[in-house]
């Protein structure tokens, strides 16, 4: 929790120093040539624009209503937060709040804002902006209200101090406050906004600001001239281009049309790694791929049947066929990178004999017909489905594949109108509570729509939210992981890394384990 920010600070320091020198040199050079003209701040030999190809288009930049990654990941460039997640995704570092304190009863948190942060409009970020933003996030209906669920009162103590009072001590509060929906927007904007204004014309204090948005095509971001940290962002312009087709995106980065891309498919990573111009990165993520089982239906309501299904999956083979070796078989419901992940858990190793034995014990006559719902045209879901069909056939389960487009599949799934559904999860906060509540708690989402309900689990989850002692809290989440495996309401398949491919000329790109990229340090040499 402490190490990485410090290390980052150092590199940042060196970077800005070098950058300042270069800038100085450039100013002289340019000044001599075009006296009177404003100098470009790009260092010599560096590109003025970063071009990045992404697989999904941002469509709405209002932080409180959005679920889709392309939007969330754009927030990181445009907005700032009180605190932010560190690179590893397991701790926090200061953002707008320079520091923060907790009252002894754990119910009051005080955040002290840095005084030099300014929005791209030029206005200083003050406590009233923070209060307005957080209240809006808490009180507007949306999928992310839980991020401030615990906050009872949000007040400005003075211009640069914000005090938040909680209903009760809340262990993951710092994690919650780092959630993207709690981005800080100017109070003026919130007050004057017509519906859709914030979605289309977001204003924040982050390193970049939105200047042009060709919807479904390209986001053009320019450096926020008032960004608090001088010398950042290192490149003046960032263009996020929407290139949905995997091949087209890969060819775009290979041919130099863009400097980097997200989500090259696993199958291409080895090849991209061999390309001397490119760097293929496998970044630690919080992604878990899993199957949601509809526990309401027979025979999926039989725990032994669910366990049999889990044992019958050869996760190593799945990793080979689906991820081309870059994923890791899942051993608990938690991502490896999440704090309190139980590294000693064995999960469900591939054991066909055991699976068959459990099938027999369950007394379910074979063959069993099951339907598998999944997103069509998804480079990961389709091969997963194909592999599962073959694997489960060995224990007498006849899997009928039902690929549907995303909207149709999601609607069906949300209506609990499914038997088995391929899905996946990524954390938005570096804490197990979000995922645990969503996946195993009935009230939040009917346990990821599985319908799983367990008193024992509910008690554990409630304790986990309120236990402030880190060691005790860890034990609670270890117990949660064991219980989840035992009850097996879902089947966890594998942990996958984030993949990106960038030109080797691009330096300084950081991708958080929760997903977002950080472009403020990025330079691309000519």
């Amino acid at each position, binding site marked *: 929790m402490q190490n990485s920010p410090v290390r980052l600070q150092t590199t940042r320091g060196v970077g800005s120093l070098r950058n300042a020198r270069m800038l100085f040199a450039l100013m002289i050079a340019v000044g001599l040539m075009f006296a009177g003209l404003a100098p470009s701040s790009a260092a010599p030999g560096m590109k003025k624009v970063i071009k990045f190809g992404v697989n999904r288009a941002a469509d709405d930049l209002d932080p409180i209503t959005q679920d889709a990654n392309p939007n969330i990941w754009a927030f990181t460039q445009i907005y700032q937060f009180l605190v932010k997640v560190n690179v590893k995704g397991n701790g926090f570092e200061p953002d707008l709040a320079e520091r923060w304190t907790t009252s002894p009863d754990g119910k009051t948190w005080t955040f002290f804002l840095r005084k030099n942060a300014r929005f791209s409009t030029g206005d200083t970020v003050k406590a009233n902006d923070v209060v307005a933003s957080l209240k809006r996030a808490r009180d507007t209906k949306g999928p992310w209200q839980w991020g401030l669920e615990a906050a009872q009162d949000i007040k400005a103590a003075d211009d640069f101090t914000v005090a938040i009072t909680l209903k009760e001590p809340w262990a993951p509060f710092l994690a919650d406050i780092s959630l993207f929906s709690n981005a800080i927007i100017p109070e003026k904007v919130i007050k004057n906004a017509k519906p859709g204004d914030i979605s289309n014309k977001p204003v924040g204090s982050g390193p970049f600001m939105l200047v042009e948005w060709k919807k479904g095509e390209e986001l053009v971001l320019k450096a926020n001239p008032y960004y608090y940290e001088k010398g950042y962002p290192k490149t003046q312009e960032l263009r996020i281009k929407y290139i949905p087709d*995997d*091949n087209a995106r890969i060819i775009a980065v290979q041919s130099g049309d863009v400097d980097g891309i997200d989500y090259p*498919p696993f*199958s*291409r990573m*080895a*090849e991209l790694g061999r390309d001397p111009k490119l760097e293929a990165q496998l970044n630690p993520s919080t992604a878990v791929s899993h199957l949601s089982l509809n526990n309401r239906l027979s025979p999926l309501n039989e725990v032994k049947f669910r366990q049999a299904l889990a044992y019958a999956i*050869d996760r190593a*083979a799945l990793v*080979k*066929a689906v991820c*081309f070796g870059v994923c890791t078989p899942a051993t608990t419901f938690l991502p490896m990178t999440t704090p309190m992940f139980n590294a000693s858990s064995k999960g469900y190793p591939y054991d066909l004999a055991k699976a068959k034995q459990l099938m027999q014990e369950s007394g379910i006559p074979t063959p069993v017909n099951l339907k598998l719902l999944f*997103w*069509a*045209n*998804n*480079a990961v879901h*389709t*091969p997963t*489905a*194909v*592999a599962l*069909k*073959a694997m489960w056939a060995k224990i007498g389960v006849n899997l009928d*594949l*039902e*690929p*549907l*487009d995303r909207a*149709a599949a999601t609607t069906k799934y949300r209506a609990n109108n499914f038997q088995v559904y391929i899905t996946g999860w990524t954390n938005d906060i570096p804490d197990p509570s979000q995922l645990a509540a969503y996946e195993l708690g009935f009230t939040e989402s009917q346990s990821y729509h599985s319908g799983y309900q367990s008193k024992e689990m509910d008690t554990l989850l409630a304790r986990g939210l309120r236990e402030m002692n880190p060691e005790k809290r860890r034990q609670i989440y270890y117990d949660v992981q064991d219980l989840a495996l035992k009850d097996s309401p879902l089947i966890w398949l594998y942990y996958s890394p984030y993949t990106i491919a960038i030109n080797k000329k691009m330096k300084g790109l950081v991708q958080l384990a929760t997903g977002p990229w950080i472009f403020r340090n990025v330079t691309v040499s000519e």
Partner: protein
Amino acid sequence: MSTLVQEQRIVADTGGRPRLHPAMVIGGLMLLVIVGASLLAPVLTSYDPDGQDFDQILLAPGARHLFGTDNFGRDVLTRVLYGARIDLRIGILAVVFPFLFGSLVGSAAGYFGGWVDTIVMRTVDVITAVPFLVLVIAIVAFLGPGEVNILLAIGSVGWVTYSRLVRGEVLREKNLEYVAAARALGFHRWRILLGHVLPNAVAPAIIFLASDVVLVILTTASLGFLGLGVRPPSPEWGMMISEGREFLSNGWWVATMPGFACMYTGLMFILLGDGIADLLRVKGQ
């Protein structure tokens, strides 16, 4: 028999008897080969089209796997052979029913005119106003992916072309003398239409039929590309191509082999179409 001036054509084809067009012969042979190969697939290969082998992933074409293996270690040749059954079935079924329906509707519209014509042609206008692929995509999205649904989607749009072609021919035919003669003989109008006019008017539609099969197979492939193809793990060629495009650089054979199969079939139907066209033209003269 005597005439003052005898006619004789110097031009080729003096025989007048329809000859077997070489394109037809080659196309027919190709058809024989592919139908035979797909039917004999279980004999020709010892692999299961869905049989996965995770130790044999993405093997290049070689002695054990002539067309290599895919990302599940499945034998590509086996899948291509079994896929031929599916693609030929889709290709032919998705064309035959629209052809029958379209010809019937189109000829009725052309022959009876009036409100029948208005209704049919306005329906045709509505359907043609929306681009073919877009409409098919919407219909498949509605029905869900799968072979039958693809057939339904393509069929519900495809009949339009046939009805247009046949209607145009019927309009031309119905003013010819033999129709008047048949009418004068007191034949029922349906009998005239189905027994006399339609057989003569259907030639361009039949010629179009062969190239339409190619079009259907390609449309199925495009649907696969957009994620709306037949259900996996079906070895349908379009799906194989669209799934295999992920591996074009590290396993080119996965997409390319079914691509060649697709081209082979396309060429075959084009040749057959040329042959049929020639045959009908000779007959028509």
